[in-house]
């Protein structure tokens, strides 16, 4: 495993978020270091997705602060956070189902493109060149990495679930983010697909071209324990444990939170 940089890249400080009477987050704090894979686990309804939504800006926490590279981003809109280098995938796939794989990934390049009304409408010079350059980038860096060359012109809605998950990762990577937030990328995948997905995430994290910090919400304990540098455990909106994967596996409180699901901490869950 690579040496971890000490610097904290993303810092979530004492987040509170409730919906009506339901408190989904009750004072959650996490610190994600640059270059690591930080996993968030916890039983269903623990607040993992709500936490990711707060980080990417879809939800506004009632209390607490979110710092990204030292900058307070608590009040920024999601599109502004994307431009700073935050990218994500969704638990329930949120692709543009009617578009091709390529067009979905092209949307991931939006923040890196510049075309305006006039040059875009005339499609000469800059606008056309930019399309070619980004197509080239997508083919060289994304399509190859994620092994989706055979489906690049297919309409996303027609693809099997496992490939859709992969396209969503492709689109998220196309932003060339600094931090990648992944909400259950393995859910619903078969064994082979899980292995592929884990390899892609590791590639993005370790490959010198990418070096993306990963924040991973995942139920698949096998994968979490294998690829994470750091794990935080949520239960009922509170962080009940945090540490290296081995520490989490031994932690009593974690076992209690997963009461009745105990054995699943050790075996891969489908």
């Amino acid at each position, binding site marked *: 495993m690579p040496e971890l940089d000490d610097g904290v890249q993303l810092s979530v400080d004492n987040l509170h978020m409730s919906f009506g009477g339901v408190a989904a987050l009750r004072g959650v704090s996490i610190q994600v270091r640059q270059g690591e894979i930080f996993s968030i686990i916890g039983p269903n309804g623990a607040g993992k997705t709500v936490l990711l939504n707060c980080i990417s800006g879809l939800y506004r926490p009632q209390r607490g602060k979110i710092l990204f590279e030292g900058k307070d981003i608590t009040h920024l809109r999601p*599109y502004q956070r994307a431009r700073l280098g935050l*990218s994500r995938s969704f638990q329930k796939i949120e692709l543009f189902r009617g578009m091709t794989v390529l067009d979905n990934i092209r*949307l991931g390049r939006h923040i890196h493109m510049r*075309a305006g009304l006039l040059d875009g409408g005339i499609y000469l010079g800059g606008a056309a060149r930019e399309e070619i350059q980004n197509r080239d980038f997508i083919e060289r860096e994304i399509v190859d990495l994620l092994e989706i060359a055979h489906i690049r012109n297919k309409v996303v809605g027609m693809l099997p679930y496992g490939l859709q998950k992969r396209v969503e990762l492709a689109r998220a990577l196309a932003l060339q983010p600094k931090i990648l937030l992944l909400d259950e990328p393995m859910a619903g995948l078969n064994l082979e697909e899980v292995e592929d997905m884990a390899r892609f995430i590791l590639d993005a994290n370790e490959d010198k071209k990418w070096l993306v910090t990963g924040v991973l919400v995942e139920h698949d304990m096998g994968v979490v324990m294998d690829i994470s540098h750091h794990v935080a455990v949520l239960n009922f909106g509170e962080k009940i444990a945090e540490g290296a994967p081995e520490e989490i596996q031994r932690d009593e409180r974690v076992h209690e939170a997963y009461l009745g699901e105990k054995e699943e901490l050790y075996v891969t869950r489908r």
Partner: protein
Amino acid sequence: MSVMRLPSGVYHETYVQDHAWWQTRFVWVRMLILFLLLFVGIPGLGNLYIVSVANIVGYTILSALGVQLLIGFAGQVTLGHAAFIAVGAYTSAIAMLQFNIPYPVSLILAALFAGVWSVLFGLPSARVKGFYLIMTTMAAQFITVDFVIAQYVSRIGGRGHYFSLPPGTISVGPWVIDSELSTYYLMLILVIGSILFMGNLLRTRIGRAWIAIRDNDIAAEVLGVNIVRYKLLAYFVAGVLAGLAGAFWITSLYFVSPEHFQWSWSLWLVGVILIGGVGSIYGVIYGAMFMTLVPEALKALLFLLTQSPELVALFPFIPQLLDKFLFVKEATFGLAIVLFLLYEPKGLAYRWWQIKNYIHLWPFSY
């Protein structure tokens, strides 16, 4: 650059080629024939009736492009598009009549002013969706045409209710636009230019952002798309196209009046894209042709029927139908739109695409 493999078995040397609109020589030849037909064939027939119908088709295409952009591509609504066409018509007329500004410049002013006016009424789209947005766009119609233009703008220059446009008012440099034929050529230039412009926009980040907002606005925003900005941009471009349409249409009018831009025209344009196909530029073209040519054919048919005294004796209401043709036309289209929504919800463009595929794959279709 490396050779990249396409599933269809077609190989492209470069992405430039893969991104091109007309990728094969066959398509190039077909487009050449189409252009020859439009620029030489139709005018060459020497039939002014055909040219005047073509002008109406062109005007409808120009008018409906913005509606398609808003409804079909950006997923917004508009039930008041005629308002922005009116803004374009009046801007151009006033610029020429009051300020002696040349027509080409007035076209640009009309486009810009209608664009800005449209953004004004698009502002609520930042906050509201659905029903309230529909109400806002209807308000655009009535505030702009029935209030601002009818009550105030029409008074400018003391010309009375109508802005009359004496022949020779409109010219592009030495080229005076005072006939069906000259209007036709101007129409071709504007329609082709607008279609190319919009088609190009749709294959850049701007068009993709619009479609993304239409399909999944949460995903779009997480990818870095500033939703409000792109919605307003859509209203702006739709307004610009409407402004061009309005400034074009005054070339075939003897005077400009609020009557030319009534709410029924706004609804008609929505009908054009519903019948032609939502979310397709071809849909605008097919819809405009269908909505113009079918009533013309109907009118011709009714006229033929009135020529036969026996038939008129048998069905005495036929001449009345011709008298009240506007009513017949609108009733027919109310019906056509309902039928299309029920049986052909994807519009003519989609059916045509299916037929083309069928022919293309024959004899292995299905």
